[in-house]
Every structure is written in structure tokens, then in C-alpha cells.
């Protein structure tokens, strides 16, 4: 087996181009609307829900891949997954992200991840597993729509696919089954990390759009809390 940069990602990258053309959610009607608050809250809730859904899906899927993939401390080399969007980020960098960049990074990440998820070549998986995967993809699509809604509410444009960023690379040398399993593992891991991060991203956004509850704090202090 050849541990080169995974080509399966390249093969799927062309499919990602399709996803960029998601219909943009029309901007919320500004007259008398409650602002982006509710949709930020909704997006936050969605990330928590997806996180929960992913836990169960990943458990089943990794059991299907078999040990050592379903072992808790499994840590294979992360070769094929170079093109996966990385959630890991320096704390200061993360804190200093402006709203637009924060939202854009989330949106782009999930677009990619959804694309790769859909391309999971698991013909051999059980029908039930395929159904769970399809269900998760639908939920992820919902999250994307929700993020798009927040961006529209705040007046940010949806990220467009970069020209030439998704070249239609031909499929490389045969990608062994074991390599494919490792790619699947990292996809699920990255999805998990992104959902953890997104919860914090949207929590941060939520706080920024809320008025600070100063009066309440004083009241509590007066009672010695």
C-alpha cells in the first residue's frame, strides 16, 4: 500500500463544485424582524443535534470498519486527509476572527465535508448504515442552510467556489481498501471536531448579538450571589 496523499479526495473534489451552487437563502425581511439572534440560536442547536447524531453514526460506522478503527485511542497516520478542512486552530487566531470570517470558515468546511460524506463509497455497507448516512447528510445539509441564513441576515455574501480550486483530478493509482478505511476514519473525526468548534463559534456569535444582562448581574450581586 502506498501512503501517498489521498487521491480519493481529489476524485471527490470535482463533486464539491456542485455543492457550491447551493441556492442562497434569501435575506430575512428586515422590517420588524428579530435580527439574526434566533437563527444563530437555531444554528447552535443544530450543531449540538448533529454532534449527537454523529456520535451514534460514527460508532456504527467504525464498528463496520472493524478493529482497530473502532478502538478509542486509534490514531492512524493522517496522510490521505490533507484536503479535509481542518477545525483545529490557534486560540488567539480563533478569538480574533471577525464574524464574517468565522461564518465563512464554517460554511466552507461543511460544504466540503458534506461533499466527501456523500461520496463515501460504501456499496458494501448494510442498507441500514447507508440509510443512517443519508439521514446524516440531510441533517448536515440543513446545517449548511442554517449558516447561510445567518450570513444572509447579517448581510454577508455566501462564499463562492474559488476559480480553479477544484480541478477535476483524475483518479490516481488504485486506492487500497485499507487506505479508504483510514480516509473514512479521518472524515468522521474531522466532522466531529468541526461540530465541537462550531458550537463554540455560534455561542460566541450569540453572545455578541445579545444585549449584556448588566442589570440582572447587579441584582444578583446585591443578594450576595
Amino acid at each position, binding site marked *: 500500500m502506498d501512503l501517498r496523499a489521498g487521491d480519493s479526495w481529489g476524485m471527490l473534489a470535482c463533486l464539491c463544485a456542485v455543492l457550491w451552487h447551493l441556492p442562497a437563502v434569501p435575506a430575512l425581511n428586515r422590517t420588524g424582524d428579530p435580527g439574526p439572534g434566533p437563527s444563530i440560536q437555531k444554528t447552535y442547536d443544530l450543531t449540538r443535534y448533529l454532534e449527537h447524531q454523529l456520535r451514534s453514526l460514527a460508532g456504527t460506522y467504525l464498528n463496520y470498519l472493524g478493529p482497530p478503527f473502532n478502538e478509542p485511542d486509534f490514531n*492512524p497516520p493522517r496522510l490521505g486527509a490533507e484536503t479535509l478542512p481542518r477545525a483545529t486552530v490557534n486560540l488567539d487566531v480563533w478569538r480574533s476572527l471577525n464574524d464574517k470570517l468565522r461564518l465563512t470558515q464554517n460554511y466552507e468546511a461543511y460544504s466540503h465535508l458534506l461533499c466527501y460524506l456523500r461520496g463515501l463509497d460504501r456499496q458494501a455497507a448494510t442498507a441500514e448504515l447507508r440509510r443512517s448516512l443519508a439521514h446524516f447528510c440531510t441533517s448536515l445539509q440543513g446545517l449548511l442552510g442554517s449558516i447561510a441564513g445567518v450570513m444572509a441576515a447579517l448581510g454577508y455574501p455566501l462564499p463562492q467556489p474559488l476559480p480553479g480550486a477544484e480541478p477535476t483530478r483524475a483518479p490516481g493509482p488504485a486506492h487500497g481498501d485499507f487506505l479508504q478505511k483510514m480516509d473514512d476514519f479521518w472524515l468522521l473525526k474531522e466532522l466531529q471536531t468541526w461540530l465541537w468548534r462550531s458550537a463554540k463559534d455560534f455561542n460566541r456569535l450569540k453572545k455578541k448579538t445579545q444585549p449584556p444582562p448588566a442589570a440582572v448581574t447587579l441584582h444578583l450581586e446585591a443578594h450576595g450571589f
Partner: protein
Amino acid sequence: MPAGRPGPAAQSARRPPPLLPLLLLCVLGAPRAGSGAHTAVISPQDPTLLIGSSLQATCSVHGDPSGATAEGLYWTLNGRRLAPELSRVLNASTLALALANLNGSRQQSGDNLVCHARDGSILAGSCLYVGLPPEKPFNISCWSKNMKDLTCRWTPGAHGETFLHTNYSLKYKLRWYGQDNTCEEYHTVGPHSCHIPKDLALFTPYEIWVEATNRLGSARSDVLTLDILDVVTTDPPPDVHVSRVGGLEDQLSVRWVSPPALKDFLFQAKYQIRYRVEDSVDWKVVDDVSNQTSCRLAGLKPGTVYFVQVRCNPFGIYGSKKAGIWSEWSHPTAASTPRSERPGPGGGACEPRGGEPSSGPVRRELKQFLGWLKKHAYCSNLSFRLYDQWRAWMQKSHKTRNQDEGILPSGRRGTTREFQTLSPGCEISRFILTGGCDPKHQPYCPGAGGVIPAIPGLVGPPPQGHPLQHPQDTETVEQLQTKGSLLWEVQQTPGQSATWWSVTPASGQSRG
């Protein structure tokens, strides 16, 4: 670096890459493994093997020559380290493995054979597919819900345990028209099922079979030949309602709607009802429900909850005499019988021996019968008074009865016993013992174990051994008494078609 050999047939969709992009990839794809890790290759890549066979594998390290050595490498299979005696070092950069008598793969995605460096990091992996070729699928059964589609189900051979992913494909073709078709919609009613939604032909038989394929081979079931019209079924009857019958404590009335598909197609339906007590698992089945959409269950226990289900069988499709396939049972509907008014044991309300029929159930039964007669037979003059007169007449001996010219003159003598009421246009003409249940006019369906107290007086015991005539059914008294059902016929006007009323006496109960 050796290019991986083409995977099994399932992956033949990957085309061999054009040369230029491949070169590009070679440049771009410089190994970017974790710090200090080398790369390696396991051979064979993703092999498929029969259970019990052996495997010789090698792990060849390449990359940085100074660090790359076969020393310290080890194998794991499905996360478990393999015994050192199974490995041996072939040369400076290759570790070999010999496995014998392989078991079936632990998971259908393949066993994970991994080559590790000394520090435990993963250098290379290969998926082993160990299993059996599929066995012949069997037991194919098919049905059509509306004569336009077909759903089929089968059983995989050897209980489906081949340890490898096995793909099942349902194929069909018209018997004399040669072209094979493949079913596309799988798992519609369970893991081994398929649904053909359209483009089916009638009047020519279909040949249907299932092909099972996996990495090790394929198997084909026997061919099933069928005609769509012979396997028609419907959805179960919708809207099944069960309700009490007035205050009658041993009866429930079941009503349903015929399945909508019947309206579109030229067939009739016959129905079956089954019911059970709440905490029992034994169903009682009522079979002769024919074409009606209502039925009355009798002989039930008072104050009990019953679960009732109905199912439907289309028959007479385009005039054929054959029945179709029974539908699924409808969702269970529950209802409870009213509580018994009289204290004492419930279930099978017994009449006191030879006593007055003034006790609840009989009186109620009779009242209902009279009410029904009034409604359907315009017998407005019938009353309890008349009934009591009959009863009195019945309690006379046979001889005196036959000679009696009193209130109730018997008309025609001979093999049937007849009574007349004084009400013109309404004649309880004869009571006849029969075992059948006339489907058209029968509000009662004698179910298995149905018990309705006999109404003494109206259905007094005919002489033993007396054969009776009946347009539909002829049986002797002994036979009928063991069967235990009685019918009497009410003719609205002489010569017109009759309506029947049935009563089943309680077993072991004295009559009259």
C-alpha cells in the same frame, strides 16, 4: 513504487489514470507521513480467500534507507498483535507473514491486516476478505397489490452467512418474450425483498429468480413461474370499528370498509375476522364472512376487552374462480363487552333449566329479534305476547301440537314445521335447522365457539331423526344438533325471498 494492483470486480469502476495527471500526482504526492515515519507496502493488497485457506503476506518498507529496516516490525490483525512465530524477516526491508486455516472475516468490510513500525505506528494495511461463495437463494414468494406492481421476497441460502457482502439481484422475464429484467427497489419489506413498480404484463406468466453474488462466486435460485393475476392481494380493510351491540353483553359488532383498490378492479372480496381476549394469545377465526362489510361476534364474555382484526382476500378476478392472497391483518381494534348485569360467573350465560325466558339475555335477544323483524320485515304486529303464545304452543306435546287447530294453525305439513302469525304480510313460515350461514341476509356470523342462548318457544326441538328440507342445505337433526346452529326463515310475503335469523344454542344446555 509499485502501483496497487486493480482491486476486485467491485472496484473496477476506477479507470486506469491517464499518464500526465499520474506524473503530476507523483510529484504532488510526496509522502507526508508523520514525523519520522516510513512508508511501506503490504502484498497482497485486499485479497479474497476461501475460509480455511492460507495466506502468505509481506510488508516491504521503503523510504529512508537508514531507518528503514524490517527489524522491529510487527503485524496486527483486527487490532490484535499476531504471534511472533507467524512472522519472519525475509530480508533487510521485508517482513513476511504466514497465516493458516483462516476464519471468516470478522466484518464485511474486510479484516484489517496492518504492518506496524517498532514504535507502534501504522506503516501499511491490507483488507482481507475471507468467506464462502453464496448458496442458492430459495423460497421466493411474490404478490401484487394492484395487478400493476409486484413485490417479491426470498430466503438467502445458508442463512446468508457468507462473511462477505453478498449482493442479491432479483431478475424476471416474460416466459416467451426472452428479455431479462432486473428489479431495482430493494429492501421494501425486509432485507431480502424487492419491488417492481411498473411495466408488468398480464396473462403471460413471468419467470422470476434471484441471483446472489459475492467476491467468491455466485449462485442462482430456482426459477419461479407465476401469473400476476394469481398473486393478487390488497391492503387490509381500513377503518375497522368494533362497537357494542346495545346492551348485549356477549356481542360486539365489527364494521369495516372494503379496501379502496377493490373499487378499481373487477374482483370481489372475502373477509376473515379474528378476535381474542386481551390477555390471551389464542385467536378465534371467523371464516364465512364473505362479501359483507360488517359482522356480529357472538358468544363473547361480558365485561371483557377483545382485540379484533380483519383481513381481505380478493377473488373472482376477471371471472376466475381462484382466490388471491390474503392481505395482512388490519391493525387490531379493541372494544369491550358490557359488564354482566347478573352476579355470578360470566362467560356463556346459561339459561336456568326449563325456566322462564324472562332472564336477561334471552329476553334481550328476543327483543332484538323482534325489533329487527319490525324493521326489516314489516312485522309490526309481532310482540312478546305473540311470542309467549308460541312458547305455550311449543310446550305442548307433539301429538297435540300437530292436531292443534288453535291460534297457530300449521299450514303445510310434511317435512317442515311452520307457524303463522296473525299479522298479514308477515309470516314466520318455517324454522329450519341448517348448518350454514346465508351470507346475504345474515346479521350473525356463527363464529367458532359462538354461543347464544336458544330462544325456547321459537325454536323448539323438532322430533329426533326427522329430516328437514332446506333450499341450501339438507342435514339431519342429529348432525345439526351437534353442530348446534339453528336458523329460522321469515318470509315477508309468500313466495318472496326470505330472510334468515340464526340462533346457536349453548352446548349442553337444555332446550325449550
